[in-house]
């Protein structure tokens, strides 16, 4: 039973990864690509981590996997912010609220 659950989660994760990559290739401009893929690949990794954690069945490994996911979430959110800021800065000058 857990095997199937893990498999289904991993499969769903793969779909998100593929969706992210296709979005990266197909979407028209940088901001929409940023919007789409920072969600897609993080959800994809989350589902993959969930599937692998269930499969491993060992709480220590599961915790390490979740830690990897949380780190990727944080880094990718900040990276997306920095990249969008740089692009905006280049296009319209410094931002002074």
């Amino acid at each position: 039973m857990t095997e199937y659950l893990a498999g289904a989660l991993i499969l769903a994760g793969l779909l998100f990864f593929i969706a992210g990559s296709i979005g990266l290739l197909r979407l028209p401009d940088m901001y929409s690509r940023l919007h789409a893929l920072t969600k897609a690949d993080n959800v994809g990794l989350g589902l993959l981590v969930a599937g692998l954690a269930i499969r491993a069945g060992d709480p220590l490994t599961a915790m390490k996997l979740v830690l990897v996911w949380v780190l990727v979430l944080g880094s990718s959110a900040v990276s997306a912010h920095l990249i969008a800021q740089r692009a905006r800065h280049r296009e319209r000058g410094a931002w002074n609220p």
Partner: protein
Amino acid sequence: MVGFLLVSALVLAISLGLGLVRVFNGPSTEDRMLAAQLVGTTGVGLLLLFDPLLGMPSSTDVALVLALLAAVSVAALTRRETGLEMDHD
């Protein structure tokens, strides 16, 4: 199950290859760096699959290090040293 994981790894590798196309094509540096981020995340996923596939628990450690370092190069790209142009406000 191992066969399923292996095919999953192939799918992730293909997804990674698709992401690389955007790294090649850009057009802007931001586009490339964004795509490199996706390649990094996909690479982390691939490493997590390598752990059970190759029987190497240290593969997850490598994924952890990649995740820890993911933001460093993006930050180095986007932050500018004082005294350089673009920094005068």
